[in-house]
Every structure is written in structure tokens, then in C-alpha cells.
């Protein structure tokens, strides 16, 4: 027994798992942090401003050219932002329900990190998939199951804060997230109906979805589904124009009004992580994943092809994150009743009809 335990503790699998876990957190946190920077920079450009361009560290500013470039681009700003959240007093208001209040940000971030584990990013020369949790073929089902848990964090945060505006934000947020999940699922189903063959073992795997897009990308054959899915990602990530739970103009800060310091920071990271995961899903399902262009044969071979694929995926991801930001600083927020109307009376029927249409098409084609 003791030997088994020591073997288990000393087994390299543990270190591997811990290292991977750390990797997920580091990657997710840094991409989120730099998305925040992108948000600040892009909003500045749109509004004719410059954006963060001063933050620097003596060690970095000492480097000629590079130091000034990093400061001008605001590349050290995320570190300052993160440290600010970390070192602020972590106040616990007296009127909150403490356990749930502390639990809510954790529940916000955990699903984001867990779904990240399942994302495939690219393909190694041998056909092996680059992902943080290889071998799991639950794919998109797992993604939707876990990422939907994020609604609990909003509900818990709003309720445990024990004050008016967070509660309103939470109610709106919960209703919105649940409403848009339906249309989202149906639009995804349309795509899987097209690509997955019935006899396949892992029909819902994202990898086989990407492999099916070696030729045409799904967005070309499923534009309606892509549009519905895109709108639903915006709603699911609580981004403009669907930022009902936050809507700072009418609800102070929405569900996280009572949060400060690092707990607020975690909500922030969770929002951006959801953006990353949402965009990755869109890229994997509609934009050909790590394929560079539709109908384009793989360039190079071996490790070069892998790197190019990874680069293509990362480029698409960056574009999507930029798109999220761009949309946010372009259009105003929908009214709450408009959000509900779009979700239930527009997107859901469109998704259903779209699914039916493809269903009939495949049935007729045989």
C-alpha cells in the first residue's frame, strides 16, 4: 500500500499533470491580460486617443529601442494591472453572504480553465493533436456542458452580494445565458450534422470537425449557423452589445458591483477567458481550425507544417479577440427586452429552421 502511494506521488505523471495545469493557467492568464491591453489600446484608437503608453520598469526601459517600444505599446501595462489587483486590500463587505461571495469568482474562472484543457490547437507531424488533455474525445459536448456552468457564478455573485444592482444584473445575466444557449446548441448541431459521419466513434470531437474542413470551411456552407453561433458567443460571453449582467450605465457594475481587488480581477480574467474559448470554438467549427486557408494544401511538412498551423490558429484567435473589442466600442447595448426578443423570437427560430432545412436536404440527398 505504502509502496503504491509513494510510487503514485513520485510518478512522473504527477509532475506532468501539474506542469500542464500551470501551463493552462499561465497561457490563459497571459492571453487574457493582453486582451485587456488590446481592449484598452483599441478603444483608445477608436476614440482618437493613444492608450496606455507609459508603464515601464527600470530594467526594461534600460534596454535601448526595445524598452521604449514596449512602453509605447503598453506591453508592461498588464503586469501593472495584475499587480494592482493583487496588492489591493481584499475587502469583504459586511452585508454579503460570505461563502458564496468568495465562491462566485472561483466558479467563474474554473469552467473557463477546464474547457481550455479540451481545446485542440494544432496537429503534430505524426497526426497527434496538440491539446492540453490528449486522448479525451468528448469534444464539443464537454465544452458546452462546462462553460455553461459560468452562469452559476453570475447568479451566485449577484445573489450573495445582497444588494439591489448586483441582483438585477444576475437575474438578467442568468436569463440571457440560458436563452442564448439554445440557439447556440442548435447552430452547432447543424454543423455536426454535416461533418460527422454516423459510424464514427468520436462524432462530436472537435478534431474530426477540423479535419473535415481541410477543403471548404464550414462557414461557407453554414453561414446562417455561423452567424447565429457568433451572435450567441457574444451573448454567452456577456460582451457588448449583450452585456446585460454588467451594464454599468444602469446597474453600476452589475453582478460584480460589490467585488473589488483580486476577486474582481478573477471575474475580469474569466470574462476574457470565455472570449478566448468562444472564439476558439468558432474558429474550430467554422473557420477551419489550424488550416491556413480553405482548399489550401498543407505547406511544408513535419514541424514546419505544425508551426504554421499553430500560427494560423493563433492569428485567427487574435483576430477574433480584436473583433470582440472592435464590436464593443462600436455599438451600444441592447435593451433587456430586445435581448430576450432576439434570443427567443429571432435566433431560436432561425436556428431551428436552419437545422430543419439541412435535415431535409440531407434526407433528400440520401
Amino acid at each position, binding site marked *: 500500500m505504502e509502496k503504491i502511494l509513494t510510487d503514485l506521488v513520485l510518478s512522473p505523471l504527477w509532475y506532468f499533470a501539474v506542469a500542464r495545469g500551470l501551463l493552462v493557467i499561465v497561457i490563459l492568464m497571459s492571453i487574457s491580460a493582453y486582451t485587456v491591453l488590446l481592449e484598452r489600446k483599441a478603444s483608445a484608437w477608436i476614440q*482618437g486617443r493613444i492608450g496606455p503608453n507609459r508603464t515601464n520598469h527600470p530594467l526594461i526601459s534600460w534596454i535601448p529601442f526595445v524598452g521604449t517600444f514596449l512602453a509605447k505599446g503598453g506591453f508592461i501595462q498588464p503586469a501593472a494591472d495584475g499587480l494592482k489587483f493583487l496588492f489591493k486590500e481584499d475587502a469583504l463587505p459586511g452585508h454579503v453572504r460570505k461563502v458564496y461571495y468568495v465562491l462566485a469568482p472561483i466558479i467563474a474562472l474554473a469552467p473557463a480553465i477546464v474547457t481550455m484543457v479540451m481545446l485542440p490547437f494544432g496537429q503534430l507531424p505524426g497526426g497527434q493533436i496538440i491539446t492540453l488533455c490528449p486522448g479525451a474525445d468528448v469534444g464539443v459536448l464537454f465544452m458546452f456542458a462546462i462553460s455553461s456552468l459560468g452562469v452559476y457564478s453570475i447568479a451566485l455573485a449577484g445573489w450573495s452580494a445582497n444588494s439591489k444592482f448586483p441582483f438585477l444584473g444576475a437575474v438578467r445575466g442568468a436569463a440571457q445565458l440560458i436563452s442564448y444557449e439554445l440557439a447556440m446548441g442548435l447552430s452547432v448541431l447543424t454543423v455536426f450534422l454535416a461533418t460527422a459521419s454516423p459510424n464514427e466513434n468520436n462524432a462530436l470531437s472537435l478534431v474530426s470537425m477540423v479535419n473535415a474542413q481541410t477543403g471548404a470551411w464550414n462557414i461557407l456552407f453554414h453561414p446562417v449557423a455561423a452567424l447565429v453561433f457568433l451572435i450567441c458567443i457574444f451573448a454567452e460571453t456577456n460582451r457588448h452589445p449583450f452585456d446585460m449582467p454588467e451594464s454599468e450605465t444602469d446597474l453600476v457594475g452589475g453582478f460584480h458591483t460589490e467585488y473589488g481587488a483580486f476577486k474582481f480581477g478573477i471575474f475580469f480574467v474569466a470574462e476574457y477567458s470565455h472570449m478566448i474559448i468562444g472564439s476558439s470554438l468558432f474558429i474550430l467549427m467554422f473557420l477551419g481550425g489550424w488550416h491556413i486557408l480553405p482548399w489550401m494544401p498543407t505547406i511544408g511538412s513535419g514541424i514546419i507544417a505544425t508551426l504554421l498551423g499553430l500560427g494560423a490558429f493563433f492569428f485567427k484567435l487574435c483576430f477574433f479577440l480584436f473583433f470582440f473589442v472592435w464590436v464593443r466600442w462600436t455599438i451600444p447595448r441592447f435593451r433587456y427586452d430586445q435581448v430576450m426578443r432576439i434570443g427567443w423570437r429571432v435566433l431560436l427560430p432561425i436556428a431551428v429552421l436552419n437545422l430543419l432545412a439541412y435535415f431535409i436536404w440531407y434526407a433528400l440527398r440520401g
Partner: protein
Amino acid sequence: MAIKIVVRRPLTFAERTYLPQIIAGLKVTWDNMMRPPVTLQYPDERPTIPKNYRGVPTLIADTNGREKCVSCQLCEFVCPPKAIRITPGEISETSDNAHVEKAPKEFEINMLRCIYCGLCQEVCPEEAIFLQSQYSLTGLTRESMVNNKAKLYELGGTLPDNHHKWDKKKEEAERQSHEGH
């Protein structure tokens, strides 16, 4: 009065999908993004001050270096927030400027009170006080925010003066005394 009824036309299908509008909006923000920023990074870059800018009130000297203020105290009286305090003084007989009526012994403008209205400049019969281009004024104590005479002349410097009123008066007086009136 004729009443014009504005017909509120129902939204077209395209408008009701919001999508063309959103795309148009995205184009607008994209164009904005491509424009250079309008930000002036203040302490590093300074704005260009227009000529008629009303900044900190200052006292000026004429082109001969004579202080133009004759301490008539009109500015002190007109000053709405009572920021100006003048202590009038005599000009000594031996001075080059003995032909001028008076000069201020002390002239203080409390910049904590000043509202930059420019009434002092407007009212001054000697064109001695001007609101010039200085716009950034800071101090660590209340006392340091009171500009005394020396500071006011230092800030003011010299402005072009075509009148030389007192010199002309002096010449006129000399001419008349020669003619024996």
C-alpha cells in the same frame, strides 16, 4: 403656424436585422482607428496658445523699461473676486520717471481668488495689466500662489507700446513752458 407631421417610416427588413447598421458602425470605428490620435501628451507636448488667450494676469513694462502701472487702483476696484491688492507709492523726484504720476509700492494678485475674467485688463487706463499666455500655475503653499509685484513684472515682461503717454505729456509740458505759458 403650419404643422409638419414627420412620417415615421417603419424599419425595413434589413434594418430590423441590425446587421447592416452594425457593419456600417464597424466601418466608422475602423476609419477612426486608422486616423492618428488627437491626444496631446500634456507635460511632454504643450498646446499652442492663441494670441488673445486669457491666462495669468501680469504687469508689463513699456519699451523703455518703465513700469506702466500708475497705481490708480481701478483694477483693484473692478476685480470681481477681489484678488488684486495694491499699495500705492510715490515716485522719487530724482528718478527718471519723476514725470509719471505714481507707481505701486506693492502689487499683489492672489491667484487663488483670480477668476481670469480679464476685467482688470479691460479697465486699465494705462494698458499696464495683461492676461497673457501662462496657463499652468501651481504652488505648494497658499502664500506661493500670491503673485507679488516682482513676480508680476517677471511674468509680464515687455509688450510693444506706441503711445508712450507719459513721455509725450512731459514733452508737451516742456514745450509749453518754453513758449512761456
